[in-house]
C-alpha cells in the first residue's frame, strides 16, 4: 500500500518549515530524502509520525486518508520513526526502550522474557554482544544508542519505517549491517524512507529519491536518474562555488592559538593545533569523532577531565580548570553547535545575547547603559543582515538562521582574537550562509585566528586556509587546503589513511 503526501505545509511562527511537500512512498522500496539543513526533512518525518500536525495538505495510506492525532495513531497505522535526535529513556533497559509503548503482556504483567527475546531478535543482525537486552541504556555510547533507536523502529513491525539520519553516528560496519537490515525489510514489502546527508549511502541503498529545498519537493524520481552534481544543484538551488567569499589577505606568521597534547576524557587523544593570525583552520571528521569535545575542552566546558597545554597569544591558559570565563578573558570566543542548549539564552533580547560576553562596552561600574547596548546591538544586526525588528526582541522570535547569526554576532562584539566555531552554519539557510561566511572571512582578514568544525566539506573547502581531520579522537596535523582533496579528507576521517 502506498503512502502519499500532497502539498503538506507546516510553519513555526514566521518560519515555513514545510511549504508544499509532495511525496509517494511505495512498499518494498527505499525512498531517499535529501536536502540541505533546514530543508524540512525532520519536520516532515514528525508530521508523518504524528509528533506534529500539518497546517495544510493531505496524506493517504492506500486509499484511506491518514490524519494521525498523535504518535500512538501513527504507530497503529504502521508507521515507525527513527529520530534524528536520539530519544531514549536513560533509566530503562535496552529491551524496555525497544518495546516502549508496545510492551508485551502476559496476564496483566509486563512479560520480561518476551521483551528480552524480541529485543534479542532485532538486535541480532548488529552482532553487538555487549548490547544485551537487559543492559541499562544510560551508559551506552552514542553509536550503541543509535542501534537501539533503529531496533525500536524495526521491532514495531511497521509497514513504513522512517529513518532520519540513522547513520549520523554509526561506525562503518554498523552502516553495512543497517543496509543488510534495510534490504531485508525491503524484500518483506516494507517501505523505507531514508534521510541522509551522505550521497554515497543514498547511491548504495536507495531506489527512489526526492529532494527537498526550502520546504518544497523540487525533484522526485528514481535514484539513478541524477548525477551527484545534479542532486546538489537541486538541493542548493544554485552553484555552490558562489557561496564563498574571496579571501584577500594571507595568514601572518604570529601564532595566536597554540594547543598541544590535548586529551578530553578519552574521547579526544593527544590533539595538537596551531592557528596563526588571519588563518582559518577547518577540522573535518565524521559525526562523533570528537571535534565538539576538543573545542569544548579548550573552552573549559567539558565535564570530562581535560589535559594538555594551551596558550592564546602567548599567554598560557590552564586546561584542567573548568572555567570558561578565563578562556574568554584570554581572548577565546566560542560558537556552540548546540544553539538551543549551550548557545543562546532564547528568552532574552537580541541586545543581551549579542553583548553578554563583553558587557564592558555597554556598562559602567556594572550598570548597563541601555541606549549604548541598543545601538551597538543594532550595528551587529545590520552587519550580519539579521532580519529583526528591534534589538529588544527576544531571540526566540527569530528564525533559526537568524538566531545563528546572532550567535556569531556575539563573537564580533566580543572582539575575540581566536574564534572556535562548531558547526557554525548548522540549520542556516543558503542565503544566510553567505552572510556568515563573509563575517568569518572578514574576521580572519582582520587578524583573528579561526577554527571551524564542520561536517559539510564544501564549506571547509570554500572557506579555509588549512585543514585537519579528526578520526575517532585523533587529530591529523593540519595541512594547507591545497594538500587535501575531498577523497583524502574522507579517507582520513574514516581512518583508512594511516
Amino acid at each position, binding site marked *: 500500500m502506498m503512502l502519499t503526501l500532497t502539498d503538506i505545509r507546516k510553519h513555526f511562527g514566521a518560519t515555513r518549515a514545510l511549504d508544499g511537500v509532495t511525496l509517494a512512498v511505495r512498499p518494498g522500496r527505499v525512498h531517499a530524502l535529501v536536502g540541505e539543513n533546514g530543508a524540512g526533512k525532520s519536520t516532515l518525518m514528525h508530521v508523518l509520525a504524528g509528533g506534529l500536525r500539518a497546517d495544510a495538505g493531505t496524506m493517504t495510506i492506500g486509499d484511506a486518508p491518514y490524519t494521525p492525532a498523535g504518535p500512538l495513531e501513527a504507530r497503529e497505522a504502521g508507521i515507525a520513526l527513527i529520530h534524528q535526535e536520539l530519544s531514549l529513556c536513560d533509566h530503562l533497559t535496552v529491551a524496555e526502550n525497544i518495546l516502549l509503548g508496545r510492551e508485551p503482556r502476559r496476564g496483566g*504483567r509486563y512479560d520480561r522474557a518476551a521483551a528480552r527475546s524480541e529485543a534479542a531478535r532485532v538486535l541480532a543482525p548488529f552482532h553487538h554482544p555487549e548490547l544485551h537486552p537487559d543492559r541499562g541504556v544510560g551508559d551506552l555510547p552514542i553509536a550503541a544508542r543509535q542501534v537501539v533507536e533503529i531496533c525500536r523502529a524495526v521491532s514495531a513491525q511497521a509497514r513504513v519505517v522512517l529513518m532520519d539520519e540513522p547513520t549520523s553516528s554509526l561506525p562503518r560496519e554498523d552502516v553495512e549491517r543497517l543496509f543488510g537490515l534495510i534490504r531485508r525489510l525491503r524484500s518483506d514489502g516494507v517501505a523505507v524512507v531514508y534521510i541522509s546527508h551522505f550521497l554515497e549511502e543514498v547511491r548504495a541503498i536507495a531506489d527512489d529519491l526526492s529532494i527537498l529545498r526550502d520546504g518544497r519537493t523540487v525533484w522526485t524520481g528514481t535514484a539513478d536518474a541524477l548525477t551527484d552534481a545534479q542532486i546538489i544543484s537541486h538541493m542548493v538551488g544554485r552553484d555552490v562555488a558562489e557561496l564563498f567569499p574571496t579571501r584577500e589577505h594571507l595568514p601572518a606568521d604570529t601564532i595566536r592559538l597554540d594547543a598541544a597534547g590535548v586529551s578530553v576524557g578519552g574521547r579526544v587523544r593527544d590533539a595538537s593545533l596551531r592557528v596563526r593570525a588571519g588563518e582559518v583552520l577547518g577540522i573535518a571528521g565524521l559525526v562523533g569523532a570528537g571535534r565538539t569535545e576538543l573545542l569544548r575542552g579548550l573552552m573549559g566546558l567539558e565535564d570530562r577531565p581535560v589535559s594538555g597545554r594551551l596558550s592564546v597569544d602567548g599567554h598560557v591558559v590552564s586546561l584542567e580548570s573548568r572555567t570558561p570565563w578565563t578562556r574568554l578573558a584570554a581572548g577565546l570566543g566560542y560558537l556552540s553547535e548546540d544553539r538551543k542548549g549551550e548557545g543562546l539564552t532564547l528568552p532574552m533580547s537580541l541586545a543581551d545575547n549579542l553583548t553578554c560576553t563583553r558587557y564592558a562596552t555597554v556598562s559602567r561600574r556594572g550598570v548597563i547603559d541601555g541606549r549604548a547596548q541598543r545601538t551597538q546591538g543594532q550595528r551587529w544586526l545590520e552587519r550580519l543582515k539579521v532580519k529583526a525588528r528591534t534589538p529588544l526582541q527576544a531571540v526566540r522570535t527569530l528564525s533559526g538562521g537568524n538566531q545563528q547569526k546572532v550567535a556569531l554576532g556575539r563573537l564580533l562584539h566580543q572582539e575575540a582574537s581566536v574564534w572556535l566555531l562548531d558547526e557554525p552554519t548548522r540549520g542556516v539557510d543558503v542565503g544566510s550562509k553567505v552572510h556568515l561566511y563573509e563575517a568569518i572571512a572578514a574576521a580572519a582578514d582582520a587578524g583573528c585566528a579561526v577554527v571551524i568544525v564542520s561536517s559539510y566539506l564544501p564549506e571547509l573547502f570554500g572557506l579555509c586556509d588549512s585543514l585537519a581531520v579528526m578520526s575517532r579522537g585523533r587529530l591529523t596535523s593540519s595541512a594547507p587546503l591545497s594538500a587535501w582533496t575531498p577523497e583524502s579528507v574522507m579517507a582520513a576521517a574514516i581512518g583508512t589513511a594511516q
Partner: protein
Amino acid sequence: MSSTFRARLSALAPVLGLVLVIAVFAMMSDDPAQYLSPRNLRIVLAQTVIVALGAIGMTFIIISGGIDLAVGSTIALAGVVTALGVRDGYAPIVAVSAGVVTGGLVGIVNGLAITRLKVLPFIGTLGMLGIARGVAKWLANQQTVNAPETWINELAVTFPTPSWLLVAPGVWISVVLAVAATFLLQQTVFGRRVFAVGSNEAAARACGVQTDRLKVWIYGLAGLLFGLSGVMQMSRLRQGDPTVAIGTELDVIAAVVIGGGSLAGGEGTIAGSLIGALVMAFLRNGSQQMGWPNYVQEIIIGVIIVLAVAADRARRARAT
C-alpha cells in the same frame, strides 16, 4: 557484572543508612535493650505508617518526574471525611472507602490541573495544598470531628488487640501495599511507563505512551494512598482533624529522596522510600530517647537529607 554489583550496592545504601542510624542510637543509649526492644520497634512502626503510605504514593509521582505538595492537606481531608462518615452512622468500611476515594479524587484533580492547565506539578499541587486544607476545614466545620469508637481506631494502634498480629494492622496493610506497589512498578507495563515518562517524557510520548492520561492515573493512584494515609491518621487521633499533617509532604518527599528517588524523575524504589521513612522515624524516636531537645532532631534530620542526596549524587557521578 561489576555494574550490576554496583547497582545492588547502590540499592543497599539506604539500608546501610538505616542500620547505621539504629546502631548509633543503640550505642549512645544508656539502655540499649530498651531502645532495641520489640515494644519500641512497634511504636516506631506504628508512627511510620502515615509517612510510609504517603511515600509509596509519592514514589510513583517522583519517578514520573512530578511532585505533590498537597499530601499533608490530602491526609487531613481524607481523615475528616472518614471521621464524618463514621460520625454520621455509616458503616466503618464505607467511611474508610470514602476517605480513600477522596484522596484519589484530589489526586485526579491534581493530575488534570497539571496536564490540562499545563501548570508545573509544583504549582498545581501548591494550589491544592490550600484548597484541600480549606475544604477539610469547611467539611469539619472548623473543628475536629470526633467519631465514635469503631474498628478504624484499631488500625494504627501500637499494641494490636489480637496480640498475634504483633504490630498494628496498619503496618501490615502498608507492607502488603508496598509489595503490591513494587510489583506494579517493576512487573507491569504501567510501572515501566511510569519510569519512561519520568526518564524522557518526549520519548515516551513519541513511542505512543499517552503521557497525559498516564499522569492523571499516577496522581490518582498516589492520591488513593494519601487517602489511606489520612484514614490511618484519623485512626491514630481517633478524630478527623482538619489541621493535622501540616508539612507532612516534606517528610514524605524527604523519605523518597533519602531512599534514592530523584526529583529529576526516572529513579526511585518503593523499598528505598520505605527505608527513607523509617530512617526519619528512627531518627526522631532515637533523638527523643536520648532526651535530645526538638531542635537537635530538626537540625540532624535537615543535615541528613542534604548529605544523603549529596552522597547519592557523588556516588552516581563516580559511577559514570
